């Protein structure tokens, strides 16, 4: 008992080494310290030691890199109208893993997207196959129309999504189709300029680095901007192209030819204003086009020019002073023998001694041969090459051929005779028009171009999205001085003037009467060439190429037109088939360009009236619509505006007549005095009463100064002044084009470059 009690007493009364309270305190502290140390250590391990690892994982999870496709460059005509441009359209794709009933979905989608029977990719079977392929991504349809896109959205199918892709559109459809070409499904040019300049038009892709949250929303992104394709400006005038194609359509309807080509060229610059080819295709629907339609006959096809090549013969002879227009040639009754080969003129011709200009006017083969033989093959060959034959012109179209011209050392004894009349040589329509342009502009060969010369923009040389400044065709231009690269003088100015007169004689007195214009002088040469029969390798008696090459007006030429109709049915002579096409094209183009008339206007011929009526009937105007529109355009007899309109007409007619040196005096006066075209009462029902149509002076405004203004002020001031604005950059306006103070037509687009 006592030891136990003593122990208890000792236990009660002996002092403790560590007080109990302090021990407990430090034990708890130690626990918390260890806990905090564990947390800190873990934090250190995660945020310091494994920092890079987690940053990489976060980036992988949150950051996405997208390739941003570049936008293809725009093709403009010379007036700034879009001929080809790229916009975004919807493409439909699906996540098959999110679709429960794939067959039903495929059926519903195919019913909406399968709009083209020839498209095998959007059939129900194809869609179903892609949905059941086991992948997590499947295209349903690419580049669909807005209507199809809206219809698919209305289906509200789970697992079906939309994406944006670029699609190329050609708003003018078939116009200049072979020149423009088309673009395939992968935005690659496959023909025409689209193919030739695919690298420049395509651009370079960019990249977008985006940070995405848990809901896959982009919460921040940095972009390396894609470099869009370069915009290109063609020398083509959209309206002239339409006029040329319409005239060619008329000719094709008449002749049922295999194909036809019309080239309209500016004689002072060599720029191609129109290049019409039939048959043609719609670049928007290239899948439905036969491969043969893609061929650009103007540069890729050669043909024997026939009598049109006599222009080269006579030009060379005149320039070499071998002959003069009034010299007399002995055509030996339209028969000549050269190196054992007997050559005749056209059947029905029996020319004896005729002048040089008559020989050209009546297209005497013998006369051309006589002239060529006087010149000799060496000099003749030099002029042929100088006119650009036998070599590529360098025009910016793919597939250009240089034609066929035997080198001089391979000429036979009769080659000079054959070539003089356009055989044994093959040319392209572009070469033919360029030759005529050379004669028309005073004897200077200017290489043909389909692209406008690159001009550094006044605002930003690298500006990609800006619309170009219009560069319309202006009458009265001269050959550039100094001459551009590739240009050279072929013949003297006097020789070319003599040649122009002789060509005018062809139209006035010779085989080219159908090429006469109303109010304008014209000059040219017809050509009818036999084609080689591929079966017999001899000249065919049934297959011909009818051509006409000419220019107008004569004294101050503006345009050269070459018309080539391949294998017309029925009448195959160039004088009957191609010359009327030239007349139709040249007449309308000169009127469109506002070229002053240089000859007296005469009443519209009966055939022209019938053609006009036929044209109107073909356009589908019925009598009711016509009567309504006529009534709408006619002012009532008691309308006070009618008297005012008459007074204004008289005043306006006097103004141009009184202008010193104005070339509009002659056409204005006939219109004012009623001597111009007027419909007879008998034709009033079928043809509207012709009245002069006044195009008033274009309202011009002064370009305001925008330099130093912020962007908002620039837009406000330009809009208030009646101008459009094309901005680039940000900040204050640093440069503008046109310059301040320039008088420009209202609505002109001012290009502004801003900077900070």
């Amino acid at each position: 008992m006592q030891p136990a009690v003593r122990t208890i007493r000792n236990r009660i009364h002996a002092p403790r080494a560590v007080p109990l309270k302090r021990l407990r305190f430090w034990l708890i502290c130690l626990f918390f310290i260890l806990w905090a140390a564990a947390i800190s250590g873990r934090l250190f391990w995660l945020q310091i030691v494994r920092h890079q690892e987690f940053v990489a994982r976060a980036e992988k999870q949150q950051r996405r890199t997208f390739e941003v496709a570049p936008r293809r460059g725009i093709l403009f005509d010379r007036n700034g109208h879009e001929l080809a441009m790229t916009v975004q359209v919807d493409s439909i794709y699906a996540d098959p893993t999110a679709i429960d009933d794939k067959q039903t979905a495929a059926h519903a989608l195919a019913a909406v997207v399968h709009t083209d029977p020839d498209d095998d990719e959007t059939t129900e079977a194809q869609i179903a196959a892609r949905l059941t392929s086991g992948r997590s991504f499947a295209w349903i349809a690419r580049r669909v129309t807005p209507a199809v896109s809206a219809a698919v959205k209305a289906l509200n199918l789970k697992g079906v999504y939309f994406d944006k892709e670029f699609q190329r559109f050609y708003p003018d459809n078939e116009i200049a189709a072979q020149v423009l070409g088309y673009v395939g499904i992968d935005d690659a040019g496959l023909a025409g300029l689209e193919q030739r300049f695919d690298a420049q038009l395509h651009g370079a892709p960019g990249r977008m680095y985006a940070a995405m949250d848990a809901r896959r929303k982009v919460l921040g992104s940095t972009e390396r901007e894609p470099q869009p394709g370069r915009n290109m400006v063609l020398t083509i005038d959209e309206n002239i192209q339409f006029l040329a194609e319409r005239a060619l359509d008329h000719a094709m309807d008449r002749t049922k030819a295999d194909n036809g080509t019309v080239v309209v060229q500016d004689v002072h610059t060599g720029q191609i204003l129109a290049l019409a080819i039939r048959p043609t295709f719609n670049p928007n629907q290239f899948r439905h086009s036969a491969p043969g339609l893609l061929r650009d006959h103007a540069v890729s096809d050669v043909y024997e020019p026939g009598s049109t090549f006599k222009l080269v013969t006579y030009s060379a002879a005149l320039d070499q002073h071998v002959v003069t227009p009034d010299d007399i040639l002995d055509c030996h009754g339209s028969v000549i023998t050269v190196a054992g080969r007997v050559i005749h003129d056209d059947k029905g011709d029996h020319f004896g001694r005729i002048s040089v200009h008559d020989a050209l006017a009546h297209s005497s083969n013998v006369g051309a041969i006589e002239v060529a033989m006087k010149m000799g093959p060496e000099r003749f060959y030099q002029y042929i090459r100088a006119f650009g034959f036998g070599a590529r012109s360098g025009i910016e179209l793919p597939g250009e051929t240089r034609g066929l011209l035997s080198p001089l050392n391979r000429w036979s004894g009769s080659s000079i005779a054959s070539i003089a009349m356009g055989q044994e040589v093959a040319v392209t329509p572009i070469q033919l028009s360029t030759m005529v342009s050379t004669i028309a502009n005073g004897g200077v060969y200017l290489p043909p171009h389909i692209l406008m010369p690159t001009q550094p923009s006044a605002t930003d040389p690298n500006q990609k999205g800006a619309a170009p400044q219009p560069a319309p065709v202006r009458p009265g231009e001269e050959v550039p001085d100094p001459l551009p690269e590739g240009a050279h003088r072929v013949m003297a100015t006097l020789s070319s003037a003599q040649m122009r007169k002789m060509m005018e004689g062809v139209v006035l007195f010779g085989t080219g009467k159908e090429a006469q214009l109303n109010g304008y002088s014209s000059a040219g040469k017809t050509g009818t060439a036999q084609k080689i029969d591929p079966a017999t390798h001899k000249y065919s008696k049934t297959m011909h190429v009818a051509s006409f090459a000419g220019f107008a007006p004569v004294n101050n030429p503006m345009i050269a037109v070459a018309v080539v109709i391949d294998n017309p049915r029925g009448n195959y002579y160039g004088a009957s088939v191609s010359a009327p096409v030239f007349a139709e094209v040249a007449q309308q183009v000169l009127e469109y360009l506002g070229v002053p008339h240089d000859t007296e206007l005469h009443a519209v011929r009966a055939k022209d009236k019938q053609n006009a009526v036929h044209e109107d009937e073909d356009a589908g105007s019925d009598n009711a619509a016509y009567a309504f529109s006529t009534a709408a355009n006619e002012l009532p007899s008691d309308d006070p505006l009618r008297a005012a309109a008459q007074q204004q007409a008289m005043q306006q007619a006097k103004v141009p007549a009184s202008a010193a040196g104005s070339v509009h005096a002659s056409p204005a006066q006939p219109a004012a005095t009623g001597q111009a075209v007027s419909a007879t009462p008998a034709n009033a029902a079928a043809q509207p009463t012709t009245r002069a149509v006044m195009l008033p002076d274009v309202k011009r405004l002064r370009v305001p100064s925008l330099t130093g203004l912020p962007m908002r002020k620039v837009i406000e001031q330009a809009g208030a002044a009646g101008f459009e604005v094309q901005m680039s950059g940000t900040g204050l306006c640093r440069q503008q084009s046109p310059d301040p103070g320039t008088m420009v037509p209202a609505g002109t687009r001012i290009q502004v470059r801003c900077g900070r």
Partner: protein
Amino acid sequence: MAAMTTGYYETGRTWSARIAEHNAALLAQQEMRRRRIRTPEFFLAKNFDNSRLVKAPDPVRMREMRIFGAALTVLFSLVMVYGLQHFYAIESSYHVEQEKQLRDQLREENRQLHLTQAELTQPGRIDSMARQLGLSTPQPGQVIHADARPDSATPAVAQAIAPAPPAQ
């Protein structure tokens, strides 16, 4: 527990009444157990009057506490500013992305409109519509240009003028 158990099977008494009865029974049991304890227990009550005690002012500590409080306030403000900025930046980035998308959308609409304009102004369409309205190709010399250098790029607005009456 016993009360609850008892109450579970009995009715007619409230819960508090049953608790009070149970407590009384426990107290009676404690008193019975207390009677068996031999050691006397004395309960002494000691009253403490702490009204004379006041907390001594400690200016140093007060100053330290104020400085500490101010530092905490500054730290809190910094954290709040940083946090607000951080989340505001995130919100702004969402907004910027929205504006970017809107800008791209408007640019694309602009291009679409340009395309529509080009389609509507194509010469073939204008020509066919003009013919449907009864218009025809102007005859040679019918169009008079008042401008000496007509610009084919500029849209032209024509006005018809009647031919002048014959001279009398």
